[in-house]
């Protein structure tokens, strides 16, 4: 790999631009999709690899190429810069997520509490989430316990394509939340997308244990192993 190719790949990663690296076997000749004009068969293979987010070999005529997609990391939006969030952020980052913390309470959302592991957003949660445009590669976790902050976030989350939505709070808290969301016009099926109480049931008690249960549940959802909030 040339240093120039490496720079292009890293710039693409930094700007969340999907790019595929194609390497000819065994001589190592390389090109990038969509940066370079490629023969149609190679361009199609690169496009398919990006769509499936899966690397693999492709044979075109006499040549074998290895196609490696580089897609932007999945995101985790955490609403509430609370104690559990402090434990959650480094674990989610280690699991490969770009983490964004949303909390308009500036005393909580400080660099000191979250170092460089997460981006901090101090807008009101509904405005912040609208701007972040959650997609099928986004997980949303609300941790504030405060309906004034959690509800607007969940309202946007339920209208988005987020692959995971979780809300901290007991069953009783969640029952009240469900009633409020119904009142706001969300249907039963939509509300059932919310994993609450948040996290896999591993008997978590401490903040790091709760964070672990959340990361485990989000990973299970991402890998298609989550059914009704439990491992399927």
């Amino acid at each position: 790999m040339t240093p120039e190719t490496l720079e292009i790949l890293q710039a693409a990663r930094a700007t969340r631009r999907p790019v595929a690296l194609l390497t000819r076997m065994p001589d190592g000749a390389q090109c990038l999709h969509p940066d370079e004009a490629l023969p149609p068969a190679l361009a199609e293979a690169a496009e398919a690899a990006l769509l499936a987010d899966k690397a693999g070999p492709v044979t075109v005529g006499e040549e074998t190429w290895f196609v490696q997609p580089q897609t932007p990391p999945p995101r985790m939006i955490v609403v509430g810069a609370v104690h559990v969030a402090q434990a959650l952020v480094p674990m989610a980052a280690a699991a490969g997520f770009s983490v964004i913390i949303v909390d308009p309470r500036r005393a909580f959302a400080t660099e000191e509490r979250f170092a460089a592991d997460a981006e901090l957003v101090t807008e009101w949660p509904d405005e912040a989430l609208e701007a972040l445009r959650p997609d099928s590669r986004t997980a949303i976790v609300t941790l504030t316990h405060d309906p004034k902050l959690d509800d607007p976030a969940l309202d946007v989350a339920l209208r988005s394509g987020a692959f995971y939505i979780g809300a901290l709070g007991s069953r009783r808290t969640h029952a009240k939340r469900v009633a409020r969301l119904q009142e706001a016009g969300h249907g039963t099926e939509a509300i059932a997308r919310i994993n609450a109480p948040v996290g896999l049931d591993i008997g978590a008690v401490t903040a790091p244990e709760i964070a672990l249960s959340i990361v485990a549940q989000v990973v299970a959802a991402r890998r298609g192993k989550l059914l009704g909030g439990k491992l399927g």
Partner: protein
Amino acid sequence: MSGTEDILETARAWRAEGESVALATVVETWGSSPRPAGSRLAVTVSGRLAGSVSGGCIEGAVADVAQQVMKTGTPQLLDFGITDERAWEVGLACGGKLKVFVEPLA
């Protein structure tokens, strides 16, 4: 494949420090290989390692080849598997098979 660690970033940092770097990438797997295609291992001439191409079974062998690749500048495509005599040497106990491409970062 969105790796959890950014091996390329580590490789870039090492290169910026003036180290020679080689990159190894899993390009094909069969059976129960622990790391999927696209998994990367970066190796420096001074012996630093980042990332992985297996569960630790073949990294030593790949790192040796990476040293040759850095010296010659010529990439190599390596086969590892239970049908390979070398499997005993490098101990691919999982029973999987994989191909690893090793190239210089230059």
